[in-house]
């Protein structure tokens, strides 16, 4: 039943996508596009709903359910299973795309040619994704033969007589071990797919032969929302990696992490360069190129994570999906950049930059650094694959390479974050820059001096402490000046300043978040320490000012899961502070053992304990223990970045009449 509804939904969405593309490219008004847009939305909702229905009703005649679900899977993970494997994740992708297409249809006020072509572009993208669902990534195949508890034959014919397993293997153990798994993929997809909207408007503008900056204005909030979701998705992914993967870290520069970071870098560059175009009319061709690159990087990310090119928790299987996405990546890149090349002469020449010592100049530096960063990460990620394809040589590119690239670029970026927001447009004179920067620079130096005098003399730590302090001081000083210059009382003045330019101030909140994140990241990694050993019952391991004592092993049985672990008493300077219970779990008596760390979270730093060996007979455990000072600060920074993006997206600029600008000398 659910297979029938689900596949019908996919077909409806597929046909509707084709209709949107055709009607959008040919000639249609808003009324002419109404039916297919609704069809796409309803079809994708029905498909997702049917998949959830099949999972929640234990319908093991559906191939996806038979392969990825078990009766004992707890409700929340049963729901999340709908996007925990390849085919289902594409259904979710399609749903997000459909919702965005519908919103573009509803929210656009102009309904002009650009909009029509933009919708058509969305139609082409969804045509591809629903096309995959209807063929090579169909989650609604019907199981026709079972053997040894597995579905071995399936058919796309939903009317075929089906055979149902009594129970399935359940989702990938790693993916049913933490609640974040239910949240991270949808959030990331909202970010990924969100960048399709400014991309579609850019393509629409090129096709319509327009050259205006209007497409940026129209997609400003779309871009901000997409960027905010992408940022949150990456932070949640890192948090999941830290809390679940049991290796003691949160970011390994593995291709799948890079896949989400690449569009983030390009999208962040685009966010900044679009400001230059909206304020000063510059960088027009560059913005179009950048948004195309951002979109194509989201498709590359999908390819890397969904194709099996890289073996990791994200790449589910070897299937025809990989080559199909690769073809779409190549095809859409050629089409988009081809169109760009053919039409870029229509884009009006930008006005000339007056001086590099200006806000525009700092934006250029930002764009240079972010695009080179993206380029280097892309090169590092693809190099092993390309080298092997062309020469057969096998090499690895890992953390040392990425760290070597990321550190210097990040230092300069942090400096630019500090200087940029208070640099005037056109030409920045020395007196005004001195007035705005000297005191923050002195505060930053003072912070560095305090660090050095208190014994923290690691290069990266001192440099980042100074840069982060500088950023916060510059922004705080500027904000305080603007607030005190207003006649209203303090709080009211503050809210007026913020609401007077939410785009700018949301950006500054995010900048403070970046500073805080950089601080937590640098301190926790530079000053982090590790220890490991085998503990008999009653024995103790020491790390920093902490001791962990093995007070006994345990075994617990949950529905579909058996966990073995150890209870560790954590003492700080002899005083008991926490009980940690790192454990190893086995799901449905199959698959690999999944380790879960025991983590003591504290503002001043985490203690992270993971089991590498456990002997239940005598109660001895092999432990890896890490101490990460101020790691908590990094997560706070991540969420502050997201808050800034949310602020800019949601808060609307108050009109000039409400908030009269007050000149500040």
């Amino acid at each position, binding site marked *: 039943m659910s297979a029938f509804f689900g596949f019908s939904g996919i077909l409806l969405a597929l046909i509707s996508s084709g209709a949107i593309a055709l009607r959008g490219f040919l000639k249609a008004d808003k009324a002419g596009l109404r039916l297919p847009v609704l069809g796409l939305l309803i079809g994708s909702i029905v498909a997702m709903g049917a998949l959830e229905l099949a999972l929640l009703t234990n319908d093991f005649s559906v191939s996806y359910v038979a392969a990825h679900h078990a009766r004992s899977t707890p409700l929340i993970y049963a729901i999340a299973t709908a996007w925990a494997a390849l085919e289902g994740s594409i259904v979710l992708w399609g749903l997000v795309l459909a919702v965005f297409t519908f919103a573009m249809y509803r929210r656009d006020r102009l309904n002009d040619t650009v909009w029509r072509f933009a919708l058509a572009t969305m139609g082409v993208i969804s045509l591809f994704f629903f096309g995959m669902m209807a063929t090579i990534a169909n989650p609604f195949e019907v199981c026709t033969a079972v053997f040894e508890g597995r579905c071995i034959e399936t058919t796309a014919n939903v009317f075929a007589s089906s055979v149902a397993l009594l129970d399935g293997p359940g989702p990938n153990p790693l993916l049913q071990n933490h609640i974040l798994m239910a949240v991270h993929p949808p959030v990331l997809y909202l970010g990924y797919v969100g960048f399709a909207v400014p991309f579609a408007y850019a393509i629409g503008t090129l096709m319509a032969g327009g050259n205006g900056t209007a497409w940026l204005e129209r997609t400003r909030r779309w871009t901000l929302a997409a960027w905010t979701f992408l940022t949150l998705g990456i932070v949640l992914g890192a948090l999941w990696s830290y809390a679940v993967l049991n290796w003691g870290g949160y970011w390994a520069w593995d291709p799948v992490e890079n896949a989400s970071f690449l569009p983030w870098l390009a999208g962040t560059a685009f966010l900044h360069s679009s400001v230059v175009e909206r304020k000063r009319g510059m960088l027009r061709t560059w913005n179009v190129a950048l948004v195309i690159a951002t979109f194509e990087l989201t498709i590359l990310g999908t390819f890397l994570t969904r194709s099996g090119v890289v073996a990791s928790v994200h790449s589910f299987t070897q299937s025809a999906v990989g080559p199909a996405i690769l073809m779409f990546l190549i095809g859409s890149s050629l089409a988009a950049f081809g169109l760009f090349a053919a039409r870029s002469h229509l884009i009006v020449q930008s006005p000339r930059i007056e001086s590099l010592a200006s806000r525009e100049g700092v934006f250029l530096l930002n764009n240079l650094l972010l695009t080179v960063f993206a380029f280097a990460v892309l090169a590092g990620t693809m190099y092993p694959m390309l080298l092997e394809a062309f020469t057969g040589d096998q090499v690895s590119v890992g953390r040392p390479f990425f760290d070597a690239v990321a550190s210097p670029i990040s230092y300069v970026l942090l400096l630019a974050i500090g200087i940029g927001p208070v640099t005037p447009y056109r030409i920045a004179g020395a007196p005004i820059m001195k007035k705005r920067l*000297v005191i923050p620079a002195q505060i930053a130096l003072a912070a560095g001096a305090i660090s050095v005098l208190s014994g923290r003399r690691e290069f990266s730590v001192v440099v980042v402490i100074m840069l982060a302090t500088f950023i916060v001081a510059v922004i705080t000083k500027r904000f305080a000046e603007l607030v005190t210059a207003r006649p209203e009382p303090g709080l009211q003045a503050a809210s007026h300043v913020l609401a007077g330019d939410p785009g700018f101030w949301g950006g500054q909140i995010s900048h403070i978040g970046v500073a805080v994140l950089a601080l937590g990241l640098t301190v926790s990694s530079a000053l982090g320490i590790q220890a490991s050993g085998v503990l008999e019952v009653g024995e103790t391991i020491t790390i920093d000012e902490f001791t962990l004592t093995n007070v006994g092993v345990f075994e617990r049985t949950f529905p579909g899961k058996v966990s073995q672990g150890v209870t560790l008493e954590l003492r700080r300077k002899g005083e008991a502070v926490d009980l940690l219970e790192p454990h190893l779990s086995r799901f449905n008596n199959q698959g690999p053992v999944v380790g879960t760390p025991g983590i003591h979270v504290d503002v001043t730093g985490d203690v992270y304990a993971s089991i590498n060996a456990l002997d239940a007979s005598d109660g001895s455990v092999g432990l890896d223990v890490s101490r990460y000072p101020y790691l908590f600060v990094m997560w706070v920074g991540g969420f502050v970045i997201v808050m800034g993006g949310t602020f800019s997206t949601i808060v609307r600029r108050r009109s000039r009449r409400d908030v009269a600008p007050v000149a500040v000398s």
Partner: protein
Amino acid sequence: MKRMMSLAVTAILATIVVVGLVQGPPSTVPYDRVLELAGQVRCPQCQVSVADSNAAVAQTMRVIIAEQVEAGRSDDEILEYFVDRYGEWVLTKPRRSGSTLLLWLLPLVGIGAGLWAIVRLRRVPS
């Protein structure tokens, strides 16, 4: 007078920072050679280095590294030991020579191209 004070404060603070940095970190965080090397050797079963993995083979390789460090072998000798057994593939930090030299040059090429474009943007009149 005020300006002089400001300059003096800046100079003193800068001196403290520079002297501190030149002095280098105190030995509270021991430079962990084993961990540093483990970060440069890839775990044969996974995507990441043996420092970032707790797979059984990664643990074994960390022990091998620790033993060789103990035995007084140099970093290059230890890395070479793994390259002999697993090939270039085992290095997470590709060498700055041969087929991976290009990779290290690419970011520099990117910076160069970008700077050139910016300078050009400034010169070309509209």
